[in-house]
């Protein structure tokens, strides 16, 4: 890599507009590797969008050429390729399919949707320097809601009325399907249909989602996963006994706790597709709910190996998601907070107590225990990690018995915490467990804790290759 001095213009480089004073001059062709996009998901999407009428190899070649050779943004590449290869299909027009909003995938080229406009407005936009008026809003049916745009300013539409969106096409923007009415499209009033249960919130379309990408902000979704840990319990709703089912659902991207509020006939080990389920978060941990509006069907889809284990995440990701089950974080243990080391607990309620008095149970004979309240920071953020006795003994090498001896000898329980701090602070650790978020930020209840071994040599070589390769 050659670096221009501050102030002197980069010479002999076509990317003069690039004001960061890195001139990628030595081997500019390697920049392609540097930014190469994984095209496989796009190929699969397009294959599906073309109804399997074009073979994957042809599509792959096109995608590679669009994305990696010509650096066309993905969105334009998709539509370009669909246009190019879609000609093998019968002429557009007669082929329009009718879909419910929840069924939209964001790749439809010609689709008819019957939906209520729950919100509609005229909007001025600036398209390539030209001011243009369009109509946009939110359309909803009994399966969900999604934004729509009519790329023209003619026509008056009434909020609350049902319309047929004919010859629409759809796109996906930030995981949100959008309905578009272009030149070929038409929006006609439909007086035969009415929807009573449409929610107004945007982005509640029950889209197909990977379990791993569900966050505490997700509202409605459709997931396919394998059922495990199924159990039922009886709850009392307004004086009435009701049975609900709970368990875990997993796909290859993650696991989520679910509650089924009615009997869907779920069985352990079933792979099911839960359409229009909804998410409620508890302390940042998203939970899947199967309610009255949810349809559950058995799926014979091969979902591959499901995530039964732990997913490694960065703190930044955890903060974005809010929390979750079975998360692994590797970072530096930067602090041990008060309440670490040798502690006393009330034998009845297990609360930690500072003296021989429990706020609930009064005078008690406390039980001794070990615990760590650690702060683990991975450079993207910090979490609080609460580590119980067994794992504390494991990573510090200090057993409860030894800790009690130390405290006795020094006449100070705090001596144990000091020793543990000396052994652990600024060590790299991997903690695994469930994370929830409250007013004090994300906190992990740790199931297992280990001092991490880093292969510095290998990682450094990897970094060197990456840095050198991009210069």
């Amino acid at each position, binding site marked *: 890599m050659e670096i221009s001095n501050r102030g002197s213009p980069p010479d002999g480089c076509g990317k003069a507009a690039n004001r960061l004073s*890195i001139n990628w001059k030595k081997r500019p062709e390697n920049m392609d590797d540097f930014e190469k996009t994984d095209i496989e998901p796009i190929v699969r999407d397009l294959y599906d969008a073309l109804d399997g009428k074009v073979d994957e190899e042809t599509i792959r070649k096109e995608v590679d050429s669009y994305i990696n050779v010509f650096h066309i943004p993905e969105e334009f590449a998709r539509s370009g390729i669909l246009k190019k290869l879609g000609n093998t299909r019968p002429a557009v027009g007669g082929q329009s399919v009718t879909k419910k909003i929840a069924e939209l995938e964001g790749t439809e080229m010609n689709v008819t949707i019957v939906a209520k406009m729950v919100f509609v407005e005229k909007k001025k936009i600036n398209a390539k320097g030209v001011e243009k008026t369009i109509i946009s809003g939110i359309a909803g049916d009994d399966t969900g809601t999604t934004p729509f745009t009519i790329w023209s300013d003619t026509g008056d539409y009434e909020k609350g009325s049902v319309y047929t969106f004919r010859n629409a096409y759809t796109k996906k923007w930030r995981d949100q399907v959008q309905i578009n009415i272009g030149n070929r499209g038409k929006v006609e009033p439909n007086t035969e249909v009415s929807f009573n249960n449409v929610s107004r919130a945007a982005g509640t379309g029950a889209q197909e989602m990977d379990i791993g990408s569900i966050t505490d902000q997700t509202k409605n979704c459709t997931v396919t996963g394998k059922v495990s840990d199924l159990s039922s319990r009886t709850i009392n709703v307004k004086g009435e006994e009701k049975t609900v089912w709970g368990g875990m659902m997993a796909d290859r991207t993650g696991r989520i706790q679910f509650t089924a509020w009615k009997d869907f006939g779920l069985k352990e080990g079933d792979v099911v597709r839960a359409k229009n389920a909804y998410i409620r978060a508890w302390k940042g941990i998203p939970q899947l709910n199967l309610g009255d509006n949810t349809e559950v069907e058995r799926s014979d889809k091969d979902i591959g190996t499901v995530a039964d284990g732990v997913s490694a995440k960065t703190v930044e990701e955890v903060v974005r998601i809010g929390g979750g089950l079975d998360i692994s974080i590797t970072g530096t243990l930067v602090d041990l907070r008060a309440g670490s080391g040798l502690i006393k607990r009330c034998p009845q309620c297990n609360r930690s107590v500072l003296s021989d008095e429990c706020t609930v149970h009064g005078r008690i004979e406390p039980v001794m225990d070990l615990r760590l309240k650690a702060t683990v920071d991975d450079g993207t953020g910090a979490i609080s990690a609460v580590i119980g006795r067994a794992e504390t003994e494991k990573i510090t090498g200090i057993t409860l018995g030894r800790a009690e001896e130390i405290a006795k000898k020094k006449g100070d329980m705090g001596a144990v915490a000091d020793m543990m701090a000396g052994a652990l*602070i600024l060590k790299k650790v991997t903690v695994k467990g469930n994370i929830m978020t409250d007013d004090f930020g994300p906190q992990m209840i740790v199931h297992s804790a280990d001092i991490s071994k880093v292969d510095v040599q290998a990682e450094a070589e990897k970094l060197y290759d*990456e840095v050198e390769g991009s210069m």
Partner: protein
Amino acid sequence: MSAGNRETAWRVFSSELNTASFEIKAEAEKMPSYQLSRLGAVINRVLIAGVLTEKENVGTPDEPMWRGRIQDVASGTVYINIGRYQPEAAAAMVDLEPPCLVAVVGKVKSYTTEDQRTYVSVRPERIIPINADTQKEWLLDTAKSTWKRLVDMKKAMGAADRTEKGLEKEGFPELSAKGIALALEKYGTPDSAMFLKSIQAALRTLLPDKNIDLGLQEDLSENPEEIDLESPSADDDSEDKEDIVLELLTELDTEGKGAPRDELERRAEQEGISSMELEEITNNLMDKGVIYEPNLRYLKRI
């Protein structure tokens, strides 16, 4: 970041830390303030590691005020200051014998002199002796995260809209979008060579058998320990308040053993300086070495 989240300990080389001259001031009392790095890191807390090359007690044996220098191996020196509000770090300092390898977690502080030079230092919450393996892990982590910021910065420079909103649309997480947009606004194009050199130096330490060469010009210029600010900040009234506090200290030091804290607090309040503010100001003055604490209840000008 929500109020409850603990501030990230950024892994930064001294080259990035010492040039992070722009301060993002706290929006309200008890809110954190930040130093903005040239690569867009929004830094309140850091994790640094290196060789403690010197330490000095500028306080008294009973009320120590430690100063030290840490050479981070890759790029230069970081200054640390430990006062009475960092009891764990202060206690640890006593046992450290330079030169030795240490790691520090601490808060970043800055002050700007009258001629508009900004100095960045670290006030350790923890300082711990480490071994060579831990130091190497830090060098690796820091090289990786510095490289990531360089790549992000380059990507951001290619964006059509380099505002915070624009970068968020490009897919940057909220905090990076904010930091990068502000860094570009305040500093302009970063001198990437400086940061690449730090990465190169780290890699040379980690891979001594490999002939690491990123093709950078090997210049021998001094590490930037001080930075010229292009324009003096106009709305900075902290300097004025420092002057007020200094005057009060002189006035209240009637017996030559310093100004009593409670009296100082009372008088400062009359001057419109809250006790919180006073704490901050006196800490800054102690950092500058203008005043010290002869004992817990007194402050004295040097």
